[in-house]
């Protein structure tokens, strides 16, 4: 009996809502949605979008869903080589759960790690990368509230690493840089700026530190996966709504949304790449003569003549025997037997014509030529040294600020 009455009441209520709605529509009345009604309408919209996407997929002739890019795919013309050079794990870190992430974001506040390496200056063509001589690791927020548990012990190891790193000055062995990265990831701390910083410090190392570059790439893939994760869970940091709505009173600036670690892990598994380190500031080349070996993520791939080669900032190209690369604008880059090329050094391999082409564009861009500036965007690995020299020698020239902006695209 009670069930019947309850069922009847539900039907009456539903009819009442529908009738009210029809009445409002007929009369043209408009009502401001209540706070309780808003989630219901949103849920309804989500269901409708979901159904529409299902219908779209079932439609005959609908395009197949694009699968994530397979980053392990070899470039055309490649033949397998003796891979990997060294074993470098490319998995998502096991210890990165939501609690660890919350600790990480609390400790480094919002993107402030770089403050503690204050005056790094990758400014000269010769490549002098300096940190503030007074290592300010003492001020790291990590220091506050260290209580001696395991996580804080690991933080203390990282702080000591930062102190030693800063005290060491501009020259670092690959092992030292790797140790600092180990210490950071041990905290765990994943920070895009730190990865870029270590990459900049590795610029003068010969041979190129393949294992370090692979580790930096994995670090960057994790930071990128965290960005992708936040797209589905919501941001860690408060976002001022369209420069209009501020945070509510008492808002904790760093709040890891539930499930962020899992979402980032999933994004990583789906093939999250190193972000701009994958997509930008690369040099599009072709193997012109001979055979070269591309070392990417510590894995070697042999590329024969005719094969396209995209030199990213985290790649190393080696020539076991004499070979040559070609760029459509810069001409041929000769590689003697045993030569090694990275994004830092590829400009040194330019021929006279290539060098002149770069210098002409840099001079024009320095004078404010917009077309030359746009061309240089695609030549950053080959042109960064000239850009640095030009912006350094004439810092107030009409186009100097734009050159400095381009350099951010290479250095960060």
């Amino acid at each position, binding site marked *: 009996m009670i069930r019947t009455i309850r069922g009847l009441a539900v039907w009456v209520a539903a009819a009442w809502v529908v009738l009210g*709605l029809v009445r409002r*529509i007929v009369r*043209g*009345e*408009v009502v*401001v*949605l209540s*706070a309780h009604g*808003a*989630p219901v*309408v949103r*849920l*309804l*919209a*989500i269901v*409708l*979008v979901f159904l529409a996407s299902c219908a779209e997929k079932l439609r005959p002739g609908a395009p197949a869903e694009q699968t994530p890019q397979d980053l392990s795919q070899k470039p055309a013309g490649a033949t397998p080589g003796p891979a990997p050079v060294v074993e470098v794990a490319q998995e998502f870190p096991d210890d990165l759960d939501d609690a660890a992430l919350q600790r990480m974001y609390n400790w480094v506040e919002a*993107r*402030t790690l770089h403050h503690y390496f204050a005056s790094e200056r990758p400014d000269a063509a010769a490549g002098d990368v300096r940190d503030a001589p007074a290592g300010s690791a003492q001020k790291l927020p990590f220091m506050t509230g260290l209580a001696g548990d395991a996580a804080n012990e690991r933080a203390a190891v990282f702080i000591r690493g930062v102190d030693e790193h800063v005290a060491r000055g501009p020259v670092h062995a690959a092992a030292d840089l790797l140790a600092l990265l180990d210490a950071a990831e041990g905290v765990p701390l994943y920070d*895009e*700026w730190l990865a870029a910083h270590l990459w900049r410090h590795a610029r003068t190392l010969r041979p190129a530190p393949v294992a370090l570059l692979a580790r930096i790439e994995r670090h960057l893939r994790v930071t990128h996966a965290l*960005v992708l994760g*936040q*797209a589905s869970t*919501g941001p860690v*940091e408060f*976002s*001022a*709504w*369209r*420069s*209009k*709505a*501020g*945070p*509510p*009173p008492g808002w904790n600036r760093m709040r890891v*949304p539930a*499930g962020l670690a899992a979402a980032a892990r999933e994004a990583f598994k789906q093939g999250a790449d190193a*972000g*701009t380190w994958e*997509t*930008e*500031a*690369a*040099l599009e080349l072709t193997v012109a003569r001979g055979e070269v070996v591309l070392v990417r993520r510590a894995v070697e791939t042999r590329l024969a003549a005719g094969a396209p080669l*995209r030199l990213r900032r985290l790649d190393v190209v080696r020539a076991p025997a004499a070979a040559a690369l070609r760029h459509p604008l810069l001409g041929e880059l000769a590689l003697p037997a045993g030569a090694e090329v990275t994004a830092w050094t590829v400009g040194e391999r330019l021929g006279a014509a290539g060098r002149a082409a770069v210098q002409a564009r840099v001079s024009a861009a320095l004078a404010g030529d*917009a077309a030359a*500036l746009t061309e240089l*965007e*695609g030549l*950053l690995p080959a042109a960064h040294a000239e850009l640095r020299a030009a912006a350094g020698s004439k810092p107030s020239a009409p*186009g100097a*600020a*734009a050159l400095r*902006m381009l*350099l*951010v*695209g290479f250095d*960060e």
Partner: protein
Amino acid sequence: MGLLHRLYARAAPEVWETETRLLHVLRLVRRPVAVQWIVTAACDLHCPHCYSSAGKRVADELTTEEAKRLIVDELVALGKPVLVLAGGELLLRRDIPEIVAYAAGQGLDWAMHTHGGHVPKFRSLLARHPPALAAISLDGERAQHDLFRGKRGSFDAALAAIRVLKETGCREVVAGTTVTRQNADRVADLFPVVAASGADSWGLHLFAPEGRGAEHMALFPTPAQLRRVAAFARRKRAVFHVELCNEWGSAGADDRYYRDQPFLCGAGRISCVIGASGEVLPCTTTDLSESEGNLRDRPLREIWARGFTRFRRAGHGECSDGKECWLQTRNGNACREQAFGCSRRVG
């Protein structure tokens, strides 16, 4: 809420448009999230990109009592959206302390957009009723900012304002830079200034040819500049809270690299602008043909409920399609295509 957010995040623009149309069919409207009031047209600067053509006070600006009755009381009835005070220069209005105190007393959160020059004079007001958000204009380094603003010392005043606002407890201070052809190539030089200013975040607005800006169309950045600034902002998000504001339009799935939340045009849907003389507009334009009515003639509640139908019924095509900024769309600037269309792979 968490599950709803995650479901929503998968296709935010589509859900937003569907929800907008659904609400229209059901004769429902969202409550506004923020209502911006151009408190005065008076301004002591003369910036070429000013969307409100600010300069002299207009004769029929809303009075103190009208502001309380026609705006604050109405916002309370509309569910207490954020009251955003802008201008002109809002702090040139003498009754601002009274209006802010009244709004705070009614439980409204308030925000302000200012050039910063008069902020120190209002320290006690800001300490008593700290805004939830304050946006301070910072359009370049000292020389460029002062030149652009037409007044020497305005750069230092802006930095001083940021400090005062943080000291008095403003929860979110945003340094706002309007990207124009003149400063687009200089944002890398401005970055360290902003990062050291004490601001919580950096909002990169995009020049819109509205108001006085319409007289300076040449200020619109080139496509290459747009692309470079967008790429720069993406990189700097690793070290500072940089956000591309709405005028840039949507970067589609890549929005996550440029802003914390996907682009959504809120004009007439969750926000609106009240002009100095009470006209209710969808967004920051001085074009009165866009007005949905005047507060002196009809209450804001009614204008909000019955107006802005073209923003609510159509979505695609008519005013903003969930991808473009409405302001830029009406001016024919396809910023989104220019800034993000070919930025994914340079090299």
